[in-house]
């Protein structure tokens, strides 16, 4: 047992000395390797944590949203639909929602305006998301000018700023009373943006959706499960632009590493002959090559993953935030809750460490089976 450990340590010693001989080359290989692992791991961590966060936070979203479509575009839905849908068996409540988007020409940002029923801000007052407060540099008690659809500015008083811990859902919100919102966008009293439907039994959702689209052919029901699935597919890591861009980098690294690992120079071949002649077995030589590959790939993997974790969960992925979130004026600021899928880590391990190590061993295989007397005849 002790001898086996000692043998591994001795050969590891030699593998390290051997790697240190080509310090510049191996170090740059290690750095590139680490960066590749870091980037992939960071994307995997980020998207996984975000998907999970979306699933948890959006648990309380309406079970179904019913929109009205006119000529393939979403249109305002008659409030009268609400009563008819509420009468369907299995529906527990239908609430008309009034909300919309507002492009602020001064700051150049898009805000989401939402009418709240309970607790509704008083007419003339608003609650704003902390992102809005940051971009417009307004706080509690300040006046917020909004240009209404008639062109006349509307002055609203900020009642409070929503807590910044919930920026992930509320950064761009301007919450106002329903009356103010209708005045602002000139939405008639008998129309609403869409209808939020709650059902008693979520198993019946799909049946209800079919029923609603039959009863109201101009409507479009959207289920909560579809919303959550949308988030899954948005941040599916294969779908990300980063990954597409990265694919090229990863591929070129694979070619580079493959070339480096497999290309056995005459020098290395000769060295293997020397080792064989001084009494190394084929297995010893392969063990040496295993350690040479494992030292680089294992340390690069560990460093890359640790750096990625740090970057995503402690620095909030500040490095590639713009690429992942777009170039908006208003960025939500949030810290992701650490959430790592061990399965993904294992997959990453097997995609990085194992192929590289094997690519180092395999080409040495033939060189390692040379007869020990070859070195003597050269």
């Amino acid at each position, binding site marked *: 047992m002790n001898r086996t450990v000692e043998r591994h*340590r001795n050969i*590891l010693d030699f593998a*390290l*000395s051997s790697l*240190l001989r080509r310090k510049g080359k191996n170090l740059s290989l290690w750095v590139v390797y680490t960066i590749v692992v870091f980037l992939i791991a960071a994307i995997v961590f980020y998207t996984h944590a975000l998907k999970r966060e979306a699933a*948890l*936070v*959006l*648990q*309380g*979203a*309406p079970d179904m*949203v019913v*929109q009205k479509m006119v000529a*393939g*575009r*979403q249109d305002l839905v008659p409030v009268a639909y609400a009563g008819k849908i509420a009468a369907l068996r299995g529906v527990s409540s239908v609430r008309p929602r009034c909300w919309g*988007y507002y*492009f602020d020409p001064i700051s150049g*940002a*898009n805000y*989401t305006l*939402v009418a709240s029923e*309970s607790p509704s801000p008083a007419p003339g007052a608003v609650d704003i*998301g902390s*992102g809005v407060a940051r971009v417009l540099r307004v706080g509690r008690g300040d006046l917020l000018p909004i240009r209404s659809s008639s062109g006349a500015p509307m002055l609203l008083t900020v009642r409070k700023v929503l807590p910044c*811990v*919930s*920026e*992930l*859902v509320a*950064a*761009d*919100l301007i919450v106002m009373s329903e009356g103010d919102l209708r005045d602002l966008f000139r939405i008639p009293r008998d129309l609403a943006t869409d209808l*939020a439907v709650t059902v008693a039994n979520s198993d019946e959702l799909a049946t209800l959706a*079919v029923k609603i689209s039959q009863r109201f052919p101009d409507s479009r029901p*959207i289920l909560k499960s579809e919303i959550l699935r*949308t988030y899954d*597919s*948005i941040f599916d890591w294969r*779908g*990300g*632009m980063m990954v597409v861009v990265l694919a090229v980098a990863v591929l070129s690294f694979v070619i580079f590493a493959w070339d480096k690992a497999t290309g056995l120079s005459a020098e290395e071949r000769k060295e293997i002959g020397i080792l064989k002649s001084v009494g190394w077995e084929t297995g010893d030589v392969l063990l040496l090559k295993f350690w040479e590959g494992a*030292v680089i790939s294992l*340390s690069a993997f*560990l*460093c890359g993953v*640790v750096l990625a*974790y740090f970057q995503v969960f402690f620095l909030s992925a500040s490095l590639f935030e*713009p690429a992942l*979130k*777009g*170039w*908006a004026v*208003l*960025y*939500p600021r949030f810290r992701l*809750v*650490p*959430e790592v899928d061990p399965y993904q880590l294992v997959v990453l391990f097997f995609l990085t460490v194992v192929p590289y190590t094997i690519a180092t061993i395999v080409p040495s295989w033939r060189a390692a089976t040379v007869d020990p007397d070859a070195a003597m005849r050269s």
Partner: protein
Amino acid sequence: MRKSTVFVLVTAANAILLSIFLLHGKYDRGEAAAARSASAEIVRKLRLTDLCLFTEARYTRHPSMTDFQSPFQDHPLALEHFPSGALVTPPGFRREGP
């Protein structure tokens, strides 16, 4: 010190750091849970349906709620201007309809 000892120590330190990180992610949840329940409360009260991740265009703030055509409103083959437009494709379920 032997080179192998240095390597083993560095690797072990890295592995331990990684496990600490993973454990930290598992157990340090108090603050996060509070933030999460505050967000969930806003979602419930205002009946929100989406996260506020991209705000550069109206169809990126509510990807699940925008109409099917809005990302392509200029032309169906128009290249997307915003990077998040490349991430947010119209969800697949829209194609068949509910």
